[in-house]
């Protein structure tokens, strides 16, 4: 698209408006936008922010569950958890690639994360204190992620939509495995049951916060919906999550930690209590229990790996030089 700008000089305001109108028409007609298509700069920037934030979440999200890989209580659960964490790294890779189609490099995105300029899902700033937290994350956090991401499989930007299709299949699997882990605890000893309840108590509200601020306070919503890179509002998705999850908690024999939770037959939905948005904004600002630790772990991994990445580049250079010398 830079080439187009050079060819035509600076387009007039009217021309830009016309171009944007055509762009919006394509979206309204349900035609996917692809990397090489013209797009408004704000669309591109919004998508980069959204996709890279999602990619960072996958990467940072490895850490809380990774915390339990070495302590998984059976070899089967250990294998499931290792595979899950590996999937999350893979999701990070597809998503970074999808963002790269918009003209930003992975190194730049990683740098933005490490410098604190880019965000990742706040949920990963909570600690995994017991084994039950691994189950709660699969059930509730992957569960919320799916709720968010299934609609994105139909979003307007092709590379993102396709990445989401692959990701969602695996997330659904993670959710079932998390629930299965919770079920084993819920059917287990009193100590295991208490562990499961405690995990639900701690993860319930943060999981509902994952959908973002209430619709009235959500800054990017209207434009993103017009662009079809957001298909439901935060509150709509949150309601779906509550409606889906409450019966699942009941089946486990666990109590959702919300005294105001009750079925509203008129609405056909559960009513639920007020979310502590102060906590949410506080964690987003960097003051959650694990913000510093998570980012520090990622930074350290990156810095410790500098010699590795440099050496691979150096070796590739040497190999290329040798090949050239041979050919000459």
């Amino acid at each position, binding site marked *: 698209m830079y080439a187009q700008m050079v060819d035509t000089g600076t387009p007039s305001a009217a021309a830009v408006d016309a171009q944007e109108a055509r762009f919006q028409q394509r979206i309204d007609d349900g035609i996917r936008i692809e990397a090489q298509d013209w797009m408004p700069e704000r669309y591109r920037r919004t998508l980069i922010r959204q996709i890279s934030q999602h990619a960072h979440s996958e*990467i940072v999200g*490895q*850490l809380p569950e*990774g915390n339990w*890989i*070495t*302590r*998984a*209580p*059976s*070899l*089967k*659960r*250990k*294998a499931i958890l*290792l*595979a899950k*964490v*590996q999937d999350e*790294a*893979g999701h*990070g*890779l597809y998503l*970074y690639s999808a963002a790269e189609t918009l003209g930003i490099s992975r190194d730049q995105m990683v740098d933005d994360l490490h410098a604190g300029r880019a965000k990742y899902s706040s949920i990963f700033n909570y600690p995994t204190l017991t*084994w039950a937290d691994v189950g709660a994350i699969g059930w509730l956090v992957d569960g919320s992620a799916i709720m968010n991401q299934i609609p994105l499989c139909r979003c307007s930007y092709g590379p993102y939509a396709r990445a989401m299709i692959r990701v969602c299949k695996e997330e659904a699997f993670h959710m079932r495995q998390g629930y299965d*882990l919770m079920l*084993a*605890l819920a059917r*287990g*000893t009193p*100590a*295991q049951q208490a562990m499961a309840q405690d995990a639900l108590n701690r993860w319930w509200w943060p999981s509902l916060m994952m959908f973002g601020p209430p619709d009235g306070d959500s800054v990017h919503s209207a434009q993103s919906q017009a662009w079809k890179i957001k298909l439901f509002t935060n509150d709509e998705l949150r309601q779906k999550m509550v409606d889906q999850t409450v019966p699942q908690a009941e089946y486990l024999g666990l109590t959702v930690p919300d005294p105001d939770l009750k079925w509203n037959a008129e609405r056909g939905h559960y009513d639920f209590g007020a979310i502590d948005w102060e906590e949410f904004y506080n964690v987003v600002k960097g003051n959650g229990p694990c913000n510093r630790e998570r980012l520090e*772990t*990622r930074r*350290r*991994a990156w810095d*410790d*790996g*500098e*010699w*590795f*990445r*440099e*050496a*691979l580049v*150096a*070796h*590739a250079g*040497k190999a290329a030089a040798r090949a050239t010398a041979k050919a000459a």
Partner: protein
Amino acid sequence: MAGSARLEYLLRLGDNALILSQRLGEWCGKGPALEEDMALTNTALDLLGQARLWLSLAAEEAGDGADEDTLAYLRDDRAFRNLLLVEQPNGGYADTLVRQFLFDAWASLALRQLLGSSDAAIAAIAEKAIKEVSYHLRRSSDLVVRLGDGTARSRALLQAALDTLWPYHHELFTGDAVDAEMLARGIGFDPASLRDAWLSYVRDVLAEATLTVPSAGGWAPKGGKQGLHSEHLGKLLAEMQVLPRSHPGARW
């Protein structure tokens, strides 16, 4: 755990895979690049899968209600039969890679021997495992070459790791009465018989990597196969076994 020679043998095979997998699991989310994070996890997962096959077979041999989990979680360190090499701490990425390379080169030879085992169950596991281990070996050899012949810094890190871990290779080739019995029954192989092939493979890779093969002789720690470990194993197990140990009888 005084059991049959076959049980001992299966525990050795299973514990090598289990303990190395456990070490690799410590890397989760902390690798030097995203692709490498995934590869480390992938190797950990392959080895864990192999460990489960070996330990399940060992549990059958042991009887007494043993299963893969009781063997993994309820044995003390003196009952573990892994090589000292695999329990060595991860150190930096260079140390982890060199440990993996030395092990992969041995495991691919060992498994090839077991393909011809007269024990059908052992041969079947070896056949599945060797495909994975061949891939691990290709990967670890390739990385040793690229990082050895990379920058001065990477070369120094790999050489230091090699110098530190080299003494542990002796144990890979030291047989005992269990090995002798397994060889006599056509089930296993003579560890010493793998040494030349291992050395020649490792030397070739190290030469291409512009690394120096440490000098022969000197310290040659051993005893892991017989249950005499380094101090590292106890701590590794304390972490790995904490839940089943603190919730006796619980199912997960």
